[in-house]
């Protein structure tokens, strides 16, 4: 689960986020959408531990110590490591303590099986020995997801994971993410610029504007893999577009 209370991050030049309240139940899904600079990524980086908040609090997991995985906008694979070496880093994070030292892997975790199994489930097992520079954008993002999933996250944070992809690859990645979420039941918070993606990937969509939560929309179609074919999906998209237009800087 994710619980955010009155969270604030202030930047020296202005901007940031303030008064953010958010609740995502365990195994729940939430998308955040909003115009550029509204603070979506700031919120995500805060939850990922990459930014220190200036005010408020947040809790990830019931005990506040959930394993957190982050998939970034750019794939962020280490270019000098092969695909399997990149994923191995994620697997090793599983046994890594918060101080960064490696602890023992959980019982029953076979590194080789884990890596190949994950790559196979994401359809990129044939690329295990390749370097990221040899992969397409879609393949790189799949490997980045495999690396994150290797650490068995209880909370998965997605920062515009499909923004660098073409339309077809983007839809394929959205289908994959939906399948993975249903299979692994991790709590998922995704930040996106795409209205359809926001709806497809989450049961609740939060609209942000100028550093705060403007409104939320519940999506009764989630987790329907065929949602894009429904008339209701496009009605929700229109509703979301209208609410988004209200928070655009030039509205």
């Amino acid at each position, binding site marked *: 689960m994710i619980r955010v209370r009155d969270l604030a991050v202030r930047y020296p030049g202005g901007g940031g986020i303030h008064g953010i309240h958010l609740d995502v139940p365990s195994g729940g899904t939430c998308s955040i959408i909003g115009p550029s600079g509204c603070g979506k990524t700031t919120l995500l*980086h805060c939850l*990922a*531990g*990459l930014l220190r908040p200036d005010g408020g609090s947040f809790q990830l997991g019931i005990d506040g110590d959930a394993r*957190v*995985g*982050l998939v*970034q*906008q*750019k794939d*962020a*694979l*280490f*270019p*000098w*490591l092969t695909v399997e070496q990149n994923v191995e*880093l*994620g697997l*090793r*994070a599983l046994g*890594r*303590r*918060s*101080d*960064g*030292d*490696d602890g023992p892997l959980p019982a029953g975790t076979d590194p080789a099986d884990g890596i190949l199994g994950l790559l196979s489930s994401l359809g990129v097992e044939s690329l295990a020995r*390749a*370097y*990221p*520079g*040899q992969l397409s954008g879609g393949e790189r993002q799949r490997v980045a997801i495999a*690396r*994150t999933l290797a*650490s068995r996250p209880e909370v998965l944070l997605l920062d515009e994971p499909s923004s660098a992809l073409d339309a077809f690859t983007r839809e394929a990645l959205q289908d994959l993410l939906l399948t993975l979420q249903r299979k692994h039941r991790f709590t998922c918070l995704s930040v996106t610029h795409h209205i359809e993606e926001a709806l497809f990937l989450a049961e609740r969509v939060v609209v942000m504007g100028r550093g705060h939560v403007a409104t939320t929309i519940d999506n009764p179609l989630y987790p329907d893999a065929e949602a894009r074919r429904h008339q209701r999906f496009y009605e929700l998209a229109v509703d979301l577009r209208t609410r988004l237009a209200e928070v655009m800087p030039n509205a």
Partner: protein
Amino acid sequence: MRSRILPGIGGLAGVGAVWWGLSLVLGDTLIPAPPEVVAVLVRLLVHGQLLLHAGASLLRLVAGITVATALAIPIGIAAGISRTADRLVSPVVYVLYPLPKIAFLPVFMVLFGLGDLSKILLLFSVVVFQLILAARDGVRGIPEELLFAAASLRLGRRDRLLRLYLPSTLPQLFSALRISVGIGIAVLFLAENYATSFGMGYFIMNNWVMINYPRMFAGILALGMLAAAVLAAIDALQRILCPWLATDR
């Protein structure tokens, strides 16, 4: 393979043609023709005389570069990671890096003797600052998303060093190394004119003084081949240590 070798041979043939042309225009007393120089070079190599000089220069060069690299990588990476280390290291490097190191050869000789050590340390001083800056800038240039990835994967100190900082500096280190080797050989050439009777610098300048231009030119040719071999070895090492660079789309 053939398409890679042919342009190289063509380029060298072009240099040879210019050399030969100059020899014809200025006379072969001042600039001996390439066939004569090559014949002298082969003779010197067969007799092993030139190998001793080349070996002495290579030893000094490799020793200076190795020590400089071993010291520059940790210092540069530390300066790239830590602001405190950077404040300590960068001002020193900025002051010492541009100084003409050859001017300090007498000081090195007084401090470290007339033997190889002073020449190795001179070479070290030529190479080390450039490598420190390359390592520092390599770490500073790591994209933010990779730093975020390292943080979200909770990489420990050892993993950060071996899987993030060190590989990210390698391409810049190799570039700096190639540039420094050229400067290093030029400095070594001058340094080998003092208090030694072995080294390519000594061999070339000794034959210049003796007005034995074919041998002098054979020495220059051999020095060029030595530099090319060192640079080719650096290229080969880069291919081994940075295999991902050869695969980028």
